[in-house]
């Protein structure tokens, strides 16, 4: 990971601050250490051999994805109680970052499954419920975007908040029902990790979880601030909006396609 925020945050402004620079630096340092442990210093697994090295990226992604999903639900609940903008923006930010990690969880799980199970996709309870989580996050984000277009701050939000509030409970219900459903077919689910994992392997896994947590926090803070700025831009008056649009056009042209 590069740290684009470190390139310099001039007076023109960005979403970086002292805190994100510290977070970004820690993430990068941790990532370097994790790469060392995951790819070089940790031993190969007896049964999975070196494909176990994918676990050090897959398991942390999955944990972060589900944590992001839980955070979205918390943010929705807080928004329904307090109705303050911050919680609304946080819900969207954690859902979007969570979507990225959910996608990565599915992709790495698939890549790991090919050498281990001999197939990219298995109807394992975790794969099934993670893929449903992916769709739910997509739906939640779609609803928020449409809700945003529909009107101003006073009008929007409740729909999105209800869906956000139900997001995590739904994922839990889906997970357990899928688990129950599959457990009838295969009495012994293939365990992804040796239950008696210990030593360097356990340490690497824990390190991976910490590092991915840091990366998640870094992304979340930036994404939250982007959402906050979007709100400011939307709330700006018509004159401001016009001026901003002109400025944006200039910036986009200048950057050669910075995302709008």
């Amino acid at each position, binding site marked *: 990971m590069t740290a684009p925020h470190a390139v310099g945050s001039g007076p023109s402004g960005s979403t970086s601050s002292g805190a994100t620079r510290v977070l970004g630096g820690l993430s990068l340092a941790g990532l370097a250490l994790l790469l060392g442990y995951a790819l070089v210093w940790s031993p190969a697994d007896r049964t999975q051999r070196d494909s176990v090295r994918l676990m050090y990226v897959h398991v942390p992604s999955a944990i972060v994805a589900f944590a992001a999903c839980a955070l979205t639900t918390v943010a929705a609940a807080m928004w329904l109680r307090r109705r303050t903008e911050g919680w609304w923006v946080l819900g969207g930010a954690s859902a979007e970052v969570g979507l990225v990690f959910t996608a990565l969880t599915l992709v790495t799980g698939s890549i790991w499954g090919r050498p281990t199970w001999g197939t990219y996709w298995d109807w394992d309870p975790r794969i099934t419920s993670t893929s449903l989580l992916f769709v739910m996050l997509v*739906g939640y984000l779609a609803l928020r975007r*449409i809700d945003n277009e*529909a*009107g101003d701050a006073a009008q929007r939000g409740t729909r999105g908040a209800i869906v956000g509030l139900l997001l995590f409970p*739904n994922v839990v*219900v889906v997970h357990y*029902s*899928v688990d129950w459903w599959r457990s009838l077919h295969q009495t012994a689910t293939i365990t992804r990790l040796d239950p008696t994992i210990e030593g360097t392997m356990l340490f690497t896994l824990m390190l991976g979880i910490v590092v991915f947590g840091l990366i998640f926090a870094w992304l979340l803070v930036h994404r939250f601030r982007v959402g906050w700025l979007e709100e400011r831009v939307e709330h700006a008056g018509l004159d401001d909006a016009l001026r901003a649009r002109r400025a944006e056009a200039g910036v986009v042209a200048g950057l050669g396609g910075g995302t709008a």
Partner: protein
Amino acid sequence: MLRDAALIAGKDLRVELRSQVTTQQVAPFAVLVLILFGVALDPDRGILARASSGLFWVAVLFCALLAIQRAFTIESADGGRDALRLSGLDPAGIFLGKAAAIALQLAALEVVLAVGVVIMYGAEVTGAPLLIATCVAATAGLAAAGTLYGVLAAGLRVRETLLPILLLPVLAPVLIGATKSFEAALGGVASDGWPWCGLLVAFALTYLAVGTLAFGTLMEEPS
């Protein structure tokens, strides 16, 4: 609350009876889905008989989407939503009434589909009580969750495309539970199905409770 629910349910069902959309469009669609599954899955290899429970519930899900869309289209036309909000009816009653109307339509569709599955897919009923209990519980769950997500998507420009993506993942437990339960009732051992039926009951009760509580907040929102 219950009186309001009965009022709303009665109104929706009267609208349905008069417009005949369910009988003339949704029910034929349900039969069409069964025919399409038959064409898509080679009928000679016995796949249809083995998969009939799953296919039945997938067809029900598709029909439920149509019925839910329909239930909220009749409200958004002519400002019916505003009228409902100003009517002073209990929001929980409105929710239960809408859900009951959807549930009754779904129950009628399930009868059509069940006859279709028995005749066209050669399914064999071995546990009638389980079959009926599953239908009741699953339908209540579908209608409750459907009404809640239906009102969320109602009034939005893209509701037709948004509702399936919001609702179908949530209904995955219903699909799983109802299918497993049906497998037990259609040629399996009935006692295997009852725990799944319990899951369906729990799902339905949860969504009925959530909908009853949340509907007021959602109805107040202007859109």
